[in-house]
């Protein structure tokens, strides 16, 4: 009985500790709000909505992203974390990217521009927190067309010609020969008389 009592007390203490460790609840409505406001306020309202349960955790905005797109990584390391680092090597970026802290304790973010050459697919870059937590954020990169499109065959830009022009030049040449012949004939007649 004493053992059962001790177990119950220990479980209660654990629950209290876990409850204290849970970060402040992020506004669940921010995502839908963000869709109606300007880009500037979207940036500031990009809060972590689903990170209240798991520590550490993170999200990526936008998701899916695209090559060449500025992409924001938000992570929550736990309230005792002082700094966080994103591992960018899998994205073709610097190996260690120091994240900036937000106004909320334990929350960090960084905005990077994905390389234009990044392959489409699913990515899971890791992040490292100063309190020893290590996590991953998952997001997708959508494909974009690689090259300039070929949309036209030049029909309206191509000069069109007919055989008439070369026939015309031929006729003019023949006319010149006939003219020279007529002049020569006239001289011959004048010479005889």
């Amino acid at each position, binding site marked *: 009985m004493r053992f059962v009592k001790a177990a119950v007390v220990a479980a209660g203490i654990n629950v209290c500790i876990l409850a204290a460790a849970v970060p402040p609840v992020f506004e669940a409505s921010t995502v839908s709000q963000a*869709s*109606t*406001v*300007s*880009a*500037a306020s*979207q940036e500031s309202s990009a809060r972590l909505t689903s990170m209240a349960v798991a520590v550490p955790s993170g999200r990526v905005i*936008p998701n899916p*992203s*695209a*090559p*060449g*797109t500025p992409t924001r990584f938000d992570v929550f390391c736990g309230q005792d974390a002082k700094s966080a680092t994103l591992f960018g090597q899998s994205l073709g970026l610097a190996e260690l990217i120091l994240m900036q802290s937000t106004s909320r304790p334990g929350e960090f973010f960084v905005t990077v521009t994905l390389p*234009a050459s990044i392959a489409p697919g699913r990515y899971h870059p890791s992040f490292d927190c100063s309190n020893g937590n290590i996590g991953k954020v998952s997001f997708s990169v*959508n*494909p*974009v*067309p*690689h*090259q*300039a*499109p*070929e*949309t*036209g*065959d*030049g*029909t*309206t*830009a*191509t*000069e*069109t*010609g*007919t*055989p*008439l*022009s*070369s*026939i*015309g*030049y*031929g*006729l*003019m*040449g*023949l*006319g*010149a*020969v*006939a*003219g020279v*012949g*007529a002049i020569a*004939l*006239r001289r011959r*007649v004048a010479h005889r008389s």
Partner: protein
Amino acid sequence: MRFLRNWLIGLSLALIAAGALSSYTGKQQLRWSAPPAPPAWEARASAHGYVAVSTTKPLARSLPRLIWIPKIKVWAPIEARGLRPNGTAVLPSLNHPLITTWFDRGPAPGQRGTTAIFGHVDSHKVGPAVFYKLGLLRPGDLVYITLEDRRVAIFRVYALAMYRKSSFPTTVVYRYTRAPTLRLITCGGRFDPRTHHYLSNVVAFALYVGAKRDPSSGLNGDRRPASGTGARS
């Protein structure tokens, strides 16, 4: 002898006149005027990363079916297409130059992000094709896209650019935007008769500004807007 001389003079004059007429008639000429290009200042505005900001709530994904651009009298169906194995966008066939294609691996019109729609500038089938006059668009012109769910997404052009294909800025044109935006893309600039390709692309940048219900939108192409006169003008 005099007769022969006069005959030769007459023949000479007649041949020269006929030749001049014939060469004038058959002179190399453009059957159509070359596609219009956007002004240079527009190209600069776009190239420097003009940022579109919209306060309009984005739409849910719905496939685009028709595009209507009153300014250049374009009214054309849209077909969904993806990527070729070499990473280039699948484009409309030159045998069907009056349709457009939507890059379906990206957002649909009205969704957050960049929607890309391609159309030919010209084709041997018809001469001027669906986006022949794209270069005439100017900031403020409206583009209407009818969606499968019978809504019409409305976009306003905010910039126009012409990029050389050799240095086409895919990240500027296709990158994700927080606001729902649209890119209308075709060919333009000088034509290289050796490679049979245009040397540049014309890109119209447009921002989503709202949507409306259009129960009489004619999704199957059986009814066109009153002010539209077709894909060609």
